[in-house]
């Protein structure tokens, strides 16, 4: 009896509410010319210089648009950013007008329909034409440009000049060179890691895969396997013991190099200030990450951040104006000076290259060709499911062979593409 009652009540409830779960109201946005312009920017470990540049831009913007207030919120770069952005898409009332976002997240945001198509706005903006075609690709989905590439970060090989000099080593020019130098350093100086590599350092491993001719979509190809092997061979006791290194993220390898515990590291131009603040300061130099062939440069990942305008923005033209100011040449150069971020405008990069020789290896890497992750919501899924770290970790910890792990990863990648 009682059970029957409950069942009946359950059926009644289902019948009452047999409708689909809710979806967000589709906001069309507006074009108010006054009010508060809300801006989301990423919170960096050293935010103060960024805040200063942004404050300058706001002042300039305020001078031209007296009745507009610009309100900046700094949001975390951690995976929590996904929730933040999803929240903004689902609830236009709490969404910003302009937002900075990582270009690897673009496909998901575009699929969710969160950002406005800026193709026309950027096309009619003289400075916008100066963004390289390959870089604009990292802001484009299905022919629509969903933002302005604001800056990029390029990784290269940092090495300790004092250690190399002491052991009579030369900066590596091939991957093989790199591995043997790393082993020699570890052997002669056991307190140091040869080259700091991490099992969770996806963008440290991908250049090896790309250089060997593999790609994310085909991790089980012989070429990709060769690249994966070249990287995971470094995750061994004679260089960076898996006990410590299997769980390292890219950020941790920066710490290792900066604190003087590693003789080499695959670090970005954006890590310069962190290294300069550590024990390795003044004792390092940078060369492009070498490829397998003598003289080749392993393709770097052109990760960076874009500035976009939300589709739900109530101040569309104001938002575009602010974006063009903050993303323009003057502020790109200021951002480089403050944060070390590489400008996306070719003219700004050329201007900086002449000024700062530190940039040379990074700009050489850009010139040799950069690569990008698939612009597809599947990438976010692959990234969140840690497909590539899991593959690297399984090989490094010998939980699986190279073939098994790459097969598994390739299957996971395929599944991610299939269901998205």
């Amino acid at each position, binding site marked *: 009896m009682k059970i029957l009652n409950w069942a009946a009540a359950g059926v009644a409830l289902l019948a009452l509410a047999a409708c*689909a*779960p809710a*979806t967000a109201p589709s906001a069309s946005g507006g074009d108010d010319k006054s009010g508060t312009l809300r801006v989301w920017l990423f919170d960096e470990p050293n935010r103060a210089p960024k805040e200063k540049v942004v404050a300058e831009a706001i002042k300039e913007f305020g001078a031209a648009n007296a009745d507009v207030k610009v309100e900046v919120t700094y949001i975390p770069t951690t995976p929590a950013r996904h929730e933040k952005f*999803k929240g903004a898409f689902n609830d236009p009332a709490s969404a910003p007008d302009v937002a900075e976002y990582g270009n690897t997240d673009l496909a998901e945001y575009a699929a969710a329909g969160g950002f406005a198509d800026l193709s026309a706005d950027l096309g009619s903006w003289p400075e916008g034409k100066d963004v390289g075609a390959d870089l604009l690709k990292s802001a484009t989905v299905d022919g629509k440009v969903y933002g302005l590439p604001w800056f990029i970060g390029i990784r290269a090989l940092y090495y300790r000049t004092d250690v190399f000099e002491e052991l009579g080593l030369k900066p590596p020019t091939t991957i093989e060179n790199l591995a043997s130098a790393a082993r020699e350093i570890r052997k002669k100086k056991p307190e140091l890691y040869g080259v700091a590599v991490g099992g969770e350092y996806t963008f440290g491993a991908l250049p090896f895969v790309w250089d060997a001719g593999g790609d994310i979509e085909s991790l089980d190809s012989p070429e990709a396997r060769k690249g994966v092997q070249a990287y995971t061979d470094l995750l061994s006791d004679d260089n960076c013991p898996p006990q*410590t290194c299997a*769980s390292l993220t890219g950020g941790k390898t920066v710490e290792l190099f900066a604190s003087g515990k590693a003789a080499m590291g695959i670090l970005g131009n954006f890590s310069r200030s962190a290294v300069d603040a550590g024990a390795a300061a003044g004792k390092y130099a940078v060369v492009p990450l070498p490829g397998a062939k003598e003289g080749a440069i392993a393709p770097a990942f052109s990760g960076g951040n874009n500035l976009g305008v939300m589709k739900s923005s109530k101040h569309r033209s104001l938002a575009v104006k602010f974006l063009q100011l903050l993303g323009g040449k003057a502020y790109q150069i200021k951002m480089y000076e403050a944060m070390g971020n590489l400008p996306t405008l070719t003219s700004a990069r050329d201007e900086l290259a002449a000024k700062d020789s530190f940039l040379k290896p990074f700009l050489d890497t850009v010139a040799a060709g950069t690569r990008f992750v698939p612009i597809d919501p599947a990438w*976010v899924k692959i990234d969140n499911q840690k497909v590539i*770290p899991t593959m690297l*970790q399984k090989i490094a910890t010998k939980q699986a062979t190279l073939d098994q792990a790459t097969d598994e990863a390739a299957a996971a990648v395929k599944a991610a593409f299939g269901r998205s």
Partner: protein
Amino acid sequence: MTAVTTAPADPETRVRQSTPRPRGRLRPWLYLLPSAAVLLPLFGYPIYMLGLLSVFDYRQAQVSGGEPTRFIGFDNYATLLGDQRFWSVLAQTVVFAAVLVIATLAVGAALAVVLTKAGRVPRLLLSLAAMAAWAAPAMTGSTVWMFLFDADLGLVNQLLGIEGYNWFYDKWVTFGIVGATVVWHSFPFVMVTLYAGIQAIPSSVVEAASLDGASAWHSFWRVIVPMLRPLVTIVVIQSIIWDFKIFTQIYVMTNGGGIAGQNSVLNVYAYQTAFGSSEYGLGSAIGVIMTLILLVVTLLYIRALYRSGEKL
């Protein structure tokens, strides 16, 4: 139903009989109303939504209105049951939870007995330590334990002189550390509950047992434990539910599932599926399966107790 079919011919008796009856049947519901008014919206609605989401193709594009939401029946469940990873995580979760329940009960019960025997000062100290562990938020506790076992800076490694040893590398060592943290968080509840129960046992009963020649060990198992059975039941069910749903400690201490995801448990897996991969439908299906497993385990346990003739 019965009242209607067996209604006697005499209208007067019928009225007299049927009026108190519905009221008698309604009364328990009436008493339940206040708690139902709180519980139904707070638990019923989320569970209903969870079930509803689990039969839809519901991903980020659907949430933000980019694509229509599609009813897909049990497809999410089929995907899940066909996924080897789901099964390995499920098995891992069950075993881990079972060990945790036993460990929590053992530690909690042992310390409850210690509390009853200890003098005033040690009792106070033990209670304070337990209360502190109980009061510590799971996030804080996990972080502190993580620092204790940190490879380079951890106190444990410094004391043992094995700096650089990574406790979170081996799968079973990691589970051991995380398990210890979970037990540390949850034993105070068991200890306090059982201590209160032991205090409530009339001393004459224990005295009689000892007069009959029962050792401390015997009187614990033969006298105290049977008398505590209702309490033990509650504590066991609570522990099963808590430990099966373990999330914070794993998520914080192993950075979301450990090396190559080897330390993942069902709740973390559900979270990563639903929110990490934006597969809200699939994530909800995991949630539904977890709820069902917990319900079944709890019902079986209560039923087993009834069978053995013990009242709760």
